């Protein structure tokens, strides 16, 4: 099962990187999202995966009696997801703003080439 996750993570990374190389700002943004998802899965894998044992202590008990999924990666990913949302929304709005200004989605239109002599 881990193998499947590893492959999916590799695909997410590859797709994200490929999207980053595109000229369209929207694609760039989608690439960042895919890359973020890939990174989340990588972190998740680092804590090993456990089926059907969420890190929640039983009603009756005070400590874990059975094995349980590693809570640290989960806490990290939760933070990453929410922060990622903040960044994405800011980036999307930035994109919108750029679009209003230069009426283009093309990253190359943002370039102001520097003068030859500095």
């Amino acid at each position, binding site marked *: 099962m881990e193998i499947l996750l590893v492959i999916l993570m590799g695909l997410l990374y590859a797709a994200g990187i490929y999207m980053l190389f595109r000229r369209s700002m929207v694609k760039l943004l989608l690439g960042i999202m895919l890359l973020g998802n890939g990174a989340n899965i990588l972190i998740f894998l680092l804590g090993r995966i456990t089926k059907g044992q969420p890190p929640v202590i039983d009603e009756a008990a005070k400590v874990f009696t059975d094995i349980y999924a590693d809570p640290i990666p989960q806490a990290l990913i939760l933070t990453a997801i929410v922060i990622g949302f903040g960044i994405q929304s800011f980036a999307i709005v930035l994109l*919108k703003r750029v679009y209003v200004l230069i009426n283009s989605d093309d990253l190359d239109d943002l370039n102001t080439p520097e003068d030859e002599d500095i």
Partner: protein
Amino acid sequence: MKSTILKTATSYLLPILLLFSVFILLRGHYHPGGGFVGGLIASIAFVLHGFTYGTENTLKLMRYHPAVLIPAGLALATLSMFAPVLLGLPVMTGLWIDEPIPVIGMVGSALFFDLGVYLVVIGVVLTILFTITQYNE
């Protein structure tokens, strides 16, 4: 959107979703859930309302601009962080009332902190989405 079904559904869904979000928030310490998820669910409820009735009406319904929730939440979280200092304990020490309170359950400083997170999340999400919607109009 001018769908009667959606309108009717939304008018029921909004209170239910809000109630559900509070439920998720309160059980967070013992079961899956918590401030982040709760806040997100509550904001989805308002976003749904906004889609159905228009942002103006949702803002009217909320009476205050959602941005107000951000400083409120931040203040609440900060206060709950520093409350133990008043008792001479280090910052962020967990303070708990010994007996559970009916319906809410155990009450402690961590709950207020989570409530702060909940408010900030609602404030942030709604501010972003409503600002964009208004900008488009």
